[in-house]
């Protein structure tokens, strides 16, 4: 059922190296001096309070925002205009006025997949997230959870080496959240690096291997999930964990 990410015929995209990355809007500094290496394999969770800069960091990594200072370097630089080797799923899924299937084939088309292959690949991707029966439905009439799974199917169909997720379950009920988490888990097992922003601590524990903890735009702590939750090394992380309800 799982379609593994094909072994890259070219040098892998990862690791991603951030060096002194900062991002400012006007004179408001939203990210400051972030240095980190994002390695393939493990699932990375970016944690932090609202306004800590999590979403900005994700966008800078994905290339949607250009860092105002520092550098973002992939192991293999992306070629402008070439099909992307990374994908992103947003908090509110952005779907087009097409069928569920049409949304996936559209993305495959942009990624340069031959027309003859698009249908099969889209169908397979929809089946993997449990939307096989809804392939012909208008995407925007799907439920919130189905829409987010469709967004995941669209991203997955591209067989990205890295998948960025920006609070993908923030607007979903617990049932839909479980389904989305299962899909994320499956994408990870198929070989895609997961970088997930969340402020749901339960989700961080369930889906994360390591935590990047941001506080007011700075990378304060980086630790394996278990250690982060049991023994946060920084005062900021300890305060954050204390402030959040542990069972949410």
């Amino acid at each position, binding site marked *: 059922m799982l379609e593994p990410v094909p072994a890259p015929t070219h040098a892998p995209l990862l690791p991603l190296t951030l060096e002194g990355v900062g991002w400012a809007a006007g004179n408001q500094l939203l990210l400051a001096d972030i240095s980190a290496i994002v390695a393939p394999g493990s699932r990375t969770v970016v944690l932090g309070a609202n306004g800590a800069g999590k979403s900005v960091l994700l966008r800078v990594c994905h290339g949607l925002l250009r860092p105002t200072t520092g550098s973002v370097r992939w192991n293999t630089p992306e070629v402008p205009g070439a099909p992307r080797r990374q*994908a992103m799923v947003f908090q509110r899924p952005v779907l087009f006025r097409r069928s569920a299937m049409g949304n996936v084939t559209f993305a495959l088309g*942009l990624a340069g997949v031959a027309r003859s292959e698009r249908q099969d690949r889209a169908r397979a991707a929809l089946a993997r997230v449990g939307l096989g029966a809804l392939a012909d439905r208008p995407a925007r009439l799907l439920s919130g959870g189905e829409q987010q799974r469709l967004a995941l199917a669209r991203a997955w169909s591209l067989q990205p080496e890295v998948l960025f997720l920006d609070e993908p379950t923030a607007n979903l009920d617990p049932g839909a959240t479980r389904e989305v988490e299962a899909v994320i888990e499956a994408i990870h097992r198929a070989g895609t690096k997961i970088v997930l922003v969340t402020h749901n601590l339960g989700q961080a524990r369930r889906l994360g291997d390591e935590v990047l903890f941001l506080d007011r735009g700075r990378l304060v702590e980086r630790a394996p999930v278990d250690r982060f939750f049991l023994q946060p090394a920084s005062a900021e992380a300890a305060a954050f964990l204390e402030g959040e309800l542990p069972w949410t």
Partner: protein
Amino acid sequence: MNTVALALAEAATLIARADAELTQIVLLSLKVSAASIVAATAIAMPLGAWLAVAAFPGRRAIVVALNALLGLPSVVVGLAVYLLLSRAGPLGAFGILFTPAAMVIAQAILVTPLIGALTRQAVSDAWQETREQLRSLGAGSLASALALLWDLRFSLVTVVLAGFGRAVSEVGAVMIVGGNIDGVTRVMTTAIALETSKGDLPLALGLGFVLLAIVLVVNALAYVIREAVQRRHA
């Protein structure tokens, strides 16, 4: 009052028996406006979408200019096209002044800013919501513009219909470049103007009713399409 009632009755008969003169005028109106809309749409929609999506210096100035052109007086367009197409004008050699072709050109010029500005506005709103996703998928300006045009296809039908409404009910430009020649370039609006000044109210009123009906049908169509889309695509 009595004259009006009489004229109304006569107008009704003209329409009911599909009077030859009336039919010819209505058909020419529809043909000229339809042709001008096709031309204007082909130019204005891609341009409007591209203006919404692309980022380049001077874009704002172009958008402001485009919106200002919405208020373009039709007689001024008529005059400009007249000068272009007149014997001594730069395009005089084509000899199309006082032909339906000239009217199509004038109406297309008149309606292009309208379709362009409305398209740009619609695409621009959609772009705010989809820009990150489209860029994430690797879509450039052209691919994004095309994708959004397709995404908005149903709303854009109403843009085209709005353009058609403007074209078919416009009088100044077609009067100047068409010349209101009986049987050749006489359309509903120019005929109404002429017949009214001649005092032939029945034909003027009959044409007025047909024009109203057409505008009404066009708007009803726009409404129905919008409703249907909202049901189908949310």
